[in-house]
């Protein structure tokens, strides 16, 4: 039973075809990468999966349920979490509060006026655990807006993780980062995949980051699927080599 099936999905903005008939299947626990140059339609593809946009045609099946027209929040409740290409966090709150809010939401406490001591304890323990995993514990009391770009990215990923998702969608997690930060985030993703058996789809424009990370890769170019398969299959694909690798590997 596959976790996510995207069937021949299309999105048009006026006359522009941002995504033209892309399909993919993600199995539980799989690490999947979508790559392609800027403007290829990767973010639009993510927006369709997560419900930020509704498709012009095609279907999205999550956990054997058709979620094509479901609101974003409802997809989150069913186990789909995402991050954004441009980091989206709560800048004027502390690192701890950022994660605490995610944990409380995931625990179904978002409407509660008070928590019992044991519930409070649970929220606190889970928040501490997420801080620990990301290595952000020493910065727990700092305001997120004061932290480095890399730290903010890590916080966003941990907020998504706090939702206990079955599928995590990461839009260019290493965008705009230096070598060290890219390395750190890549290690974090690798650890999450290994330790939590979490299925992930991540977008990258740099193929080198992905080759060592992903189990399957889809290549998008101008909204169309150029290739799909294991890293080996994709790198040996001629269309990909001429259209993409030729420049990226140079």
């Amino acid at each position: 039973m596959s976790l996510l099936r995207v069937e021949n999905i299309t999105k048009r903005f006026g006359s522009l075809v941002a995504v033209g008939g892309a399909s993919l299947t993600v199995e539980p626990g799989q690490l999947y990468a979508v790559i392609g140059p800027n403007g290829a339609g990767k973010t639009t593809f993510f927006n369709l999966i997560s419900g930020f946009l509704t498709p012009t045609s095609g279907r999205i099946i999550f956990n054997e349920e058709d979620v094509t027209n479901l609101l974003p929040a409802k997809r989150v409740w069913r186990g789909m979490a995402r991050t954004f290409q441009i980091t989206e966090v709560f800048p004027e709150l502390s690192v701890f509060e950022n994660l605490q809010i995610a944990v409380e939401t995931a625990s179904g406490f978002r409407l509660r006026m008070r928590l019992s001591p044991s519930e409070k304890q649970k929220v606190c323990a889970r928040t501490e655990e997420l801080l620990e995993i990301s290595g952000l514990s020493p910065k727990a009391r700092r305001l997120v807006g004061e932290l480095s770009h890399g730290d903010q990215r890590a916080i966003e990923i941990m907020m998504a993780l706090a939702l206990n998702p079955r599928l995590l969608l990461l839009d260019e997690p290493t965008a705009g980062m230096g070598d060290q930060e890219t390395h750190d985030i890549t290690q974090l993703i690798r650890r999450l995949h290994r330790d939590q058996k979490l299925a992930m789809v991540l977008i990258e424009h740099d193929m080198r980051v992905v080759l060592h990370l992903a189990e399957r890769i889809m290549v998008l170019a101008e909204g169309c699927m150029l290739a799909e398969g294991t890293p080996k299959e994709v790198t040996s694909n001629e269309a990909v080599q001429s259209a993409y690798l030729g420049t990226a590997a140079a």
Partner: protein
Amino acid sequence: MDRQYQKYVGDFIIWSVLLTMPLWLHLVGGYTPLGTRVLIMALAAMALNFLLGYTGVLSFGHAAYFGLGAYGAGLTIKYLIPNTLAGMGVGLIVGIVAAAIIGLLIIRLRGIYFAMVTIAFGQVFYFIAYRWNNITGGDDGLSGWSRQPIDLGFFKIDILHDEKAFYYFVLFFFAISVAIMAAILRSPFGRTLLAIRENERRARFLGIPIDRHVWMSWLISCTFVSLAGTLYALLNNFADPHDLRWDQSGDFVMMAVLGGMRSFWGPLIGAAMFVVLQDYVSSMTSNWMSFIGLFFVLVVLFCPRGVLGIIRRRQVQ
């Protein structure tokens, strides 16, 4: 730890000042009803700020619910039951019901569109009060009634003739309202609202149904504004169509911004400055609004986080 301590000291000072105000206000040139007015305006501004500062939604039509509370209380006492608490109850319910319904209609709008539509709805109520002469008194306002002494059976409080008693009557409702709002903001629900203020997109993709939460915040905010409106009518023994108008809404926003909309007590400070300045300057010139306007511009230019924002910043450094 330190932060927490400072907060306790701040709370202690504010409550001490409010509790003792009628005892010393005349020594500094004030008078008790002026203190009462500060409390009522502060309640309205803090209620507005629940939505503005803690949910990130700007309303420019809160006077509508303030005025509905005022007219609800006044009309009830004048025509139905000469009972202060009954009048307050009716005013409060009218404000809440109107806010609940209007909230449903406008909650999908954001930013400036939301603000504009809140003004539009506010003006509707203003024109009703203005035109419906034989009931509301029209442009002259609703007079010919007064707040009634509170009769608790075993004990009577003459809030009509005893200004100090009325001050403490208002302080009682102020304290309850403020305590409720503070408790909400400390709760998981309050943090959900903060999340929406901070980043709506992130909040939505944490699985928070944004519109529903904004509606609840709007309703809570309007509830306390309506309560403030009922108290305001009681203070003046009068309901004024101006209480409903958009410039009154603007005054509430100004108070919140003056005092600092990121701090819980900011709007109280803003309301105190506004009311005192208005009282003082208007006794010298009828053009008092330009003084307040100038003051407002200076505050916004030199401390965009309001007056309490300066103190806060100095503490951090």
